[in-house]
């Protein structure tokens, strides 16, 4: 068994652990589906208030906002990693992960896998319901491309989540995820097109991964015209993932070593 296989196996084992714990709360999934249905219904009516050509020549605001909501859900799951690690710390479980061969960085990364993967799958279900019940024009032929974009986006988002884990381990605080989430959803155009922003704010939409991710997903899932050329969005998203992931892992390792020296690694 290669070293890489061992790490992948341990990460998948963590995802399986989290899936088992999630499945042990049987009403949680039903509750989430109900919340999703109410959200879809609410935005179905809100979409009727939006003028037909507000988001493009076809005026499909409903499809536009549904993809924005599901992208935000994936981002939320990725940013929740620090809260999950905080829970592990409080329950005394992170200690055993840290002293395993997987180590603290691998352990923190593996905590992100299930919630992010689950949010991607749940988003698929949400999209299916939005198509089946409310008739959004879903481009099923492009589903593989959408999965690839969602995975790339999830990687970039998870990297941001790991930055918060580094902050948590170094400073014992996971504060900031809520406003960062709100800011990314705002600047990335989850609920309205970023072209509505004045130029002084617009630049901020281009320096984070949420904007190209949601733009690409809208393009491949519901055929919305992309704000930027597809190749440019793809390059941006891949670039964010390629830069952010190793940078987050390095910062996480630094935070681990700082808190080992302070003696606070297992404290919260």
């Amino acid at each position: 068994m290669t070293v890489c296989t061992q790490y992948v196996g341990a990460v998948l084992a963590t995802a399986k652990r989290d899936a088992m714990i999630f499945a042990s709360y049987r009403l949680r999934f039903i509750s989430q589906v109900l919340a999703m249905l109410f959200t879809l219904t609410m935005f179905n009516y809100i979409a009727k208030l939006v003028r037909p050509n507000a988001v493009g020549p076809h005026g499909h605001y409903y499809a536009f906002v549904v993809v924005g909501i599901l992208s935000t859900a994936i981002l939320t799951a990725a940013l929740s990693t620090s809260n999950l690690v905080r829970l592990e710390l409080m329950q005394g479980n992170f200690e055993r992960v840290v002293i395993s061969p997987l180590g603290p960085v691998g352990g923190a990364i593996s905590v992100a896998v299930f919630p992010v993967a689950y949010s991607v799958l749940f988003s698929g279900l949400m999209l299916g319901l939005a198509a089946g019940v409310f008739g959004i024009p879903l481009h099923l032929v492009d589903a593989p491309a959408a999965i690839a974009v969602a995975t790339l986006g999830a990687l970039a988002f998870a990297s941001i989540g790991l930055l918060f884990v580094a902050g948590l381990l170094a400073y014992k605080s996971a504060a900031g995820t809520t406003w960062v989430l709100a800011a990314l959803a705002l600047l990335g155009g989850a609920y309205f097109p970023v072209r509505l922003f004045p130029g002084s704010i617009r630049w901020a939409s281009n320096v984070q991964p949420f904007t190209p991710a949601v733009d690409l997903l809208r393009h491949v899932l519901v055929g919305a015209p992309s704000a930027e050329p597809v190749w440019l969005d793809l390059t941006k998203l891949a670039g964010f993932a390629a830069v952010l992931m190793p940078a987050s892992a390095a910062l996480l390792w630094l935070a681990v070593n700082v808190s080992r020296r302070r003696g606070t690694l297992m404290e919260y």
Partner: protein
Amino acid sequence: MTGQAAEILSAAPSEEPAPSAQIAPLDEQTLVSFTDIWRYWGRGKNRWAVLRGIDLQIPCGTATCIGGRNGAGKTTLLRIATGILAPNSGTVTIDGLTTGDSWREYHRRIGFLSAGDRGLYNRMSVRAHVDFWARLAFIARSERRPAVEEALARFGLSELAKRRAERLSQGQRQRLRLALTLVHRPKVLLLDEPRTSLDGEGLEMLRCAVSDVLARGGAVIWCSPAGEEQPIDFDRTLFIEDGRLVPA
């Protein structure tokens, strides 16, 4: 000079260090080595040294008991051995490795049982726990199932394998924690107050597990409060007093 080295030097003792109690190595090959371990807690005027130049070599096939009153530094020493805590100065090697050489290889060699009853997932079954930690310990797929079954059987957990951790008694939880500590057959066993909640049967299981580690040429460090009766015969019993190791 690296930033880490500078930090260690800046954190080094400002007062003249008192000569530490040198615990001479036994004749056999050293498996665990603590070299001049200093560890401080607190800051500024409230800073105090909990460990003052600990030197200890533990040979293969030996069990060492480290006692001391509450707050003496036993847990701190074990946590330094696990890598969870970095010493202000000094080095720990296990099988010639430090955590800096290879976190993965270092931790494949150790099994650590922390004090208390934490580290379990209430909603997960006993078997799922052991299987999960076997995967985290990088046990090869072909060896994993037998290792899990052996760990369950060794601590009398086979019949409880499907039971959730939240439905275990305190003693059963401790046995499960021991099974997790030993599932990957570590070379070095670091036990912090392992007797917690164990009945006579549980203690016998623990004694057998320790004997097995020693028979394989491993080493055991057993920390417990002073005055506690121990269920096994140790090759050496030491105490931490005023931050230094002294023979019993």
